[in-house]
Structures are given as structure tokens and as C-alpha cells.
């Protein structure tokens, strides 16, 4: 177990290092000068040149990257070229909003998708199954930025049921969470449905029924638990991706989360901030992968022996 954990952690470090290299290269491949963006459209060439020098953007890329990596090893993600904000502080400041949104959305879509998945597997091919499939397919196909804008327009602007945008209190999270839940519930309901059907056909279920267990007990204690194993894997990755920043949803609803920070950093060509947000997101994905691996073993002890 410990050997496996160490092995996974070493791989995680390699993956994160790879993420810094790729992000650094991409950020510098953009044909635009951060000093020019900082100085503004009206600044003259000499001013831009002096600012480049102060920002140490004239150093060779390898020197800039080595400097970045050196600081990173000491836990310093650097300072924003644009706002002068410490990158780590900016991430810590915005993470709670993203976390609140992500967790609310996950709770909402699990509360909807698991019962729907169970229900549709019990009544496979019946009216309820087809309806859930039909609505789910539509929901999955909706672009999140469009859905967010529509919900904002009808449920916030026209009816006033929710705040239009901003983040003053928890009520500002509801509509963005509903947006994310809508586009994801259909997918998860289908996932639970498929896995339930697969497990329902296995021998141990027939044995459980033959032993005289109630259908309720068979479904929820034996079938659902096994059906949720693949769901946990995908949920782990999805949660990590959400926590890394829900770019479109946060932007439409003007939530001060990591997604908004990432987008603004890209527009400002703020390389340290872009690197920081990407590295943070990558860390979340890598960590969640490791955690999911171990949860997997907890749900199904056969996996470790395999």
C-alpha cells in the first residue's frame, strides 16, 4: 500500500513538472508581448522596452523557466505581472468560491442522477426511462455558456427568482450550481443506469435474491454499491476539473472564482498567474486520481488483490 502510494506520488511530481513545462511553452508561444499588454495601447516603444527589462522578459526563456522552477520548489508561485498580487494569495482568495460552486453542483447532480439512474434501470425501456433519456440527452447537448445565460435571463433577470450576478451570499451560488447540475445530471443518470443494469445481471445478485433478501436491500446494498465504482472514478476527475475553475459558469455569473481568474490572466497575458492556476488545477486532478484509486480499493477490495 505505502509502496504503491510512493510510486503514485513520484509519478504525480513528474506529471506536474510536465504541466509547468507545457504551460510555460504555450504561454510564451502566444504572439503577443506581456509588457505591451501591461503598458497599454498608447504607450511608446521606449516605455514598453523599459517595462520589458524591469519584468525581466528579455532574459532567455530557459533562464526565465529555471528562475520560475527554483521559486516553485520553495513554494513560491511568483507574483502577477499585472496586479502585483502574489499568485498563491490570488488562488487561495478565489478557491472558496469555486469550491462552494463545485460542491453545490456536485451535490445537486448526484441527488438527481443517482435516483434517476436507479429508477430508469428498474423500469428499463418504460416511459420513465425514455423520458429521462430524452431530457438527459438534450441537457448533455446544451453548451454551458448558453444555458447559463438563458437561466440567468429567465430566472434572474425576468422573474427575479435569483440574483443576476455577483457573489454577496449563498443565494448567488444557486443558479450557477443549477446550470452545472443540468448539463451533468443526464450523463451521470445514464452512467448509473448502465452500471446498474450490468451489475443486476451478475450472479451474486441472483444469489442475493435467491437467499430471500428484499428487492430494496438487493438494489441499494448490493447492486448500487457495485454500480457506483466507475461513477466514483469519473466523479473524482470531474470534481477536480470543477475545482480547477469553472470558467464559463463563473464568468457568466460574475463569480470571483478560479475560472474567472484564469480567464482574466489569459487576457492580460499574465504568465505567472496562468502558470499558477494551471499548476493548481493539475495538482487537483493528480491528487484526485490518487484519492480515487484508494477509494476504489475501499469500495471493492478485489481491486488491490488484482
Amino acid at each position, binding site marked *: 500500500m505505502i509502496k504503491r502510494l510512493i510510486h503514485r506520488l513520484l509519478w504525480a511530481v513528474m506529471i506536474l513538472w510536465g504541466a509547468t513545462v507545457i504551460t510555460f511553452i504555450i504561454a510564451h508561444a*502566444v*504572439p*503577443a*508581448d506581456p509588457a*505591451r*499588454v*501591461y*503598458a*497599454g*495601447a*498608447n*504607450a*511608446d*516603444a*521606449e*516605455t*514598453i*522596452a*523599459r*517595462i520589458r*527589462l*524591469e*519584468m525581466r522578459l528579455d532574459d532567455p526563456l530557459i533562464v526565465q523557466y529555471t528562475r520560475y522552477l527554483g521559486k516553485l520548489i520553495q513554494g513560491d508561485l511568483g507574483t502577477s505581472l*499585472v*496586479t*502585483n*498580487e502574489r499568485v498563491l494569495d*490570488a488562488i487561495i*482568495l*478565489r478557491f472558496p468560491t469555486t469550491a462552494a460552486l463545485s460542491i453545490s453542483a456536485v451535490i445537486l447532480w448526484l441527488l438527481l442522477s443517482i435516483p434517476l439512474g436507479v429508477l430508469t434501470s428498474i423500469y428499463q425501456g*418504460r*416511459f420513465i426511462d*425514455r*423520458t429521462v433519456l*430524452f431530457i438527459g440527452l438534450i441537457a448533455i447537448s446544451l453548451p454551458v455558456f448558453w444555458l447559463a445565460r438563458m437561466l*440567468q*435571463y*429567465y430566472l*434572474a*433577470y*425576468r*422573474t*427575479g427568482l435569483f440574483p*443576476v*450576478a*455577483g*457573489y454577496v451570499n449563498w443565494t448567488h451560488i444557486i443558479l450557477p450550481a443549477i446550470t452545472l447540475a443540468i448539463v451533468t445530471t443526464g450523463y451521470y443518470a445514464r452512467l448509473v443506469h448502465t452500471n446498474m443494469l450490468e451489475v443486476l445481471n451478475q450472479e451474486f445478485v441472483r444469489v442475493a435474491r435467491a437467499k430471500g433478501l428484499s428487492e430494496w436491500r438487493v438494489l441499494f446494498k448490493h447492486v448500487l454499491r457495485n454500480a457506483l465504482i466507475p461513477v466514483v472514478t469519473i466523479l473524482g476527475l470531474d470534481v477536480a476539473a470543477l475545482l480547477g475553475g469553472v470558467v464559463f459558469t463563473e*464568468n*457568466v*455569473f*460574475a*463569480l*470571483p*472564482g478560479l475560472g*474567472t*481568474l484564469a480567464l*482574466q490572466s489569459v*487576457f*492580460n*497575458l499574465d504568465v505567472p498567474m496562468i502558470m499558477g492556476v494551471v499548476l493548481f488545477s493539475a495538482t487537483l486532478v493528480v491528487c484526485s486520481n490518487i484519492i480515487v484509486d484508494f477509494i476504489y480499493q475501499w469500495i471493492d477490495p478485489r481491486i488491490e488483490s488484482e
Partner: protein
Amino acid sequence: MRSNHLYILHLVIITLACCILSSCSDGMQANRLYEDKNILRIAVPSDPRSLDPAIAYDVVTWPLVRTIFHGLIDYDDDLNLFPWQAESWTISDDGRTLIFKLRPDVRFSNGRKVIAPDYVYTLERILDPTTKSPGQGFFRNIVGARAFQDGMADHVSGLKAPDDETFIIELSQPDLPFLYVLAMPFAYVVPREEIEKEGSDFGRYPVGTGPFFLSDWRRGLILRFKRNPDFNNPAGIKLDEIEIMIGGDATVHMMMFERGELDIASVTSSGIPDPDFIRVMKNPNLRRLVATQSLNALFYLSMNTEMPPFDQVKVRKAVNHAIDRDRIIRLISDRGVVANGVLPPGMPGFNEHLKGYDFNPEKARQLLLEAGYKDGFKTELMIVAQNSTETKIGQAVQQDLERVGITLELKPVTGATRIEALGHRKTVPFGTFGWYQDYPDPSNFLDVLLNGRRITDINSNNVSFYNNEKVNSLLEEAAFITDQNRRLGLYQEAEEIIVDEAPWVFLYHPNMYILRQAWLKGLKLNPVWPIRYEKMWIEKD
């Protein structure tokens, strides 16, 4: 049977949706949601980069900086300069020395009195390379500025404070527009002790002499300004607070405005978002809340005069004649006026007799023929991808040029890439560009954008790389004389040559539209400071 159930379910869903939608009112009745105080509520799309006057340099942040800081001089409503924190000023006969007498009653919001050495420090700080001020270029005409920037001197020798109430600036060359430079927020006075305390975080914790002070800034969330008790003219300020929501685009802000949550729909230069503009202007209830101001700005297409085929004057003239500017104005919902030259109508030196180029495809074809492009040519126009107005204009230009045999491909890029690429020598043949004034003087357009001696290989502001010796000489002669009428005459002469040689397609001068609530009073637009929060107040009828 099953299909019946499905049909009934769909019917129920559609009925429910209709019920929800029909419960909505068609016209939003804006009500002020917060009745409590005299608080101005607005929204900005993102955090200001900094509230440090030496750093901030955009149309959204400058009006905010103005609420915290003040400078020596400012503009009145007719764009005349008047002493603000200076009591008076004099300029020497040779135009190289400016002497300011300071008012004795001005204090920073930390309670300390402003003295002349504060101004020496403020301008030196802008020129200090470690400040990374985007405005440093405006102050390099001060004696000793370059030596200071290059690390050859500890102080800028042309900045002097012989006593606490006298501030002297010595210039290397006579420079009439330098007074305008001093009215820019870069030159607003800052307290040395606060900067030494906060370091580069001064922009986060600013202390100035303006009517308000920053009481709260939660990044990504809110900015709050409160009335400054130490302000030297408390009677002139009617607002108690300014509260600024951070985040959301113009469409979100428009929704919030219509729900009464904001007092101004959008404080960006667009004013009213494109998709809402026609609806607002057709709705009498909203239309009466709109204030309009012609901006001292120009939107144009730059032709690179160093790259074929635009190195030929006849080709450039042909392109100008081929484009229907009236149609472009209609396409942007009449949010601007046709440009016949470089200078906007609100700019001193504007030449109303300039005729520009009429829409004449036949003449365009003839000019192309004379230039040796009988069958036209193929080129591409660089536009900003995220800007829907530029896309519309690009498509219109594409259609117009097709009629005279020029095949145009649109090349959408990000704003940052566009400005970078255009400023590189011999890189972009044809691109969109816009210029908003820094100050109301023709030099800020003609000299900055079209003086061939200012061309640089990278980051050139002269993006058409236009270089005419006669024009260069006229611009440099105008820059160093102090007789305003003669200066304006020289600028007009230069502009006539420029228009005749057509390095640009002169498109339009945009208007600004401010949509504000009926209860917001004191909004008085002018081309330099379209929005002045410190002059506003809330008053319910």
C-alpha cells in the same frame, strides 16, 4: 399507451415553462433596490490592475483614480485647463520652465499637508524604471529625465521645490501640451511615506488627496470608496459612497441596471452593449436615460505603407474610395460620425473643411488600374476576434473591396496579438486600429501615430509606418512652438498631406453612450472625462 404518456409529460413541461415565462413582465421596471444612503452603485468587468495613479492607464480605472487622487491642474466643462491643487502657474517666455504655486489647504487622506517636494517625488517616481509606469514616456521631456532613467543621476534635475509651496518643472524643449500631460492621472500627487510603507502594494492601499478614499477592496468582488473627511472642498461632494461590483460583462451589467441594482449600465467605453443598443434607443423609457458624448477618438484601417501593394498612394486612395463609410455607420447603429481626416471634431485644430474620400467604386477601379492592379489583388485584414463590431466592419469592408476586385480575407486574432503584430515592421499589411486621446491636443494623434521619425521596428505606434519628411518637419516644428494658433495651423497643414496620402482608411469617430438611472444626478459628459463620479449624487424625484 407509452407514447400518450410521453406526450402528456411534454405537454406538462411546456405548460409549466409557459407559466414561468408569462409571469415575467415585458418591460423591466427599474426600482432603486437600495434606498438607504446616497451611494452610487456601478459595476466593472474586472479588478482594476492598480489604483496607483502611476500605473493605472485605462478608461475604466482612470475615473476611479480621480476619486482618490488629484493633481495640479484639471479641465473645466469646456476643456479649458484650470488650477486644481495649484493656486496658479506661470510659463517662462521660452516655454521651458513651468512654475506652480500650490494651494496651502490640500491634505492627503492620511491627514498630512501636501507640499511641493511631494510633486517632485511623484514625477520622479513615474520616471523611476522600477515603478514600471506606462506613463513614463509623457515625462521624458523634463530636464534630466533620461539621465535619471538610465541610472546616471539620483534625481531628475529639472524638478525643483525651492519651498513647500513652489514647484518648478524645467523642460528640455518647449512643450505646450505638457500642461495636458500634468492633467493626466499619472501626475496626481502621491504621499512618499505611504509608498515607502506599502511598496508595490500602494495600488492596493492608495492614499491621495481626492474627495474619496478606498475603504474596501475585495478582489473579484467589490470596491468601496467613502467620502474623504480631509478633502479640502467637502461641500462640493454629494455622494457618501461609491460601491463597485467587480465582474460580469456588459450584458450582465445591463440586466442588473434594468433591475435597479446599478445606477449606470456600463462604465466601459461601449456604454451600452451592442445587442441591447437598438432596443434601448427605441424604448422611450430607456431612451430618456441615455446621455451621449462624441469621443475624441478615431477608428481606422491602417495600411502598411512599407508593404506592397499599400506602398503605392494610388492603391491606398483606391481602398479609401471603395469603402462605403455611411454603410459602416449604419452597421454600428449610428454610434459614431464619418471621419474625413485624423482629428476628431472635439479636438482643437479639427479641420471641418477636410473632405476625405467619397464612396466611389468607379474611381477606385480607375486608381487601381493606374497603379498597375487592373485585376485587383489579394490581401488580409487583421481584426480583433472578440470584438463583434470589428467583425461586422471587416465583413462590410470585405464586400466593398470585392466590388473593385480586391479579395480580402479577415484574420481574427486577440487584441494583444493584433497590437503586437501591427507594431512590428513589415508584418501586417492591413489591420483595424483605434485611438483614444490621452489629452486634447492634435499632437496626441498626429505626432504619436503619424510622425515617421517615431517609427520603431517593434511596438511602433505608427502602425502604417507612414513616413513623409514634410509631415515630420511640420509636426516637429509644431511641437516646439508656444503660439497655439500657429501650432494648430501647422497641424492642419500636416493633416491635409496625410489625408491626401491616405495611410489609413479613415472610418469614424465613435460616440459614447451612458445609460443611467433617473435618480442619478450630476452626470455631465465631456470628451476628456466622460465619467466623473465625484460630481454625481443620488436624488429620488
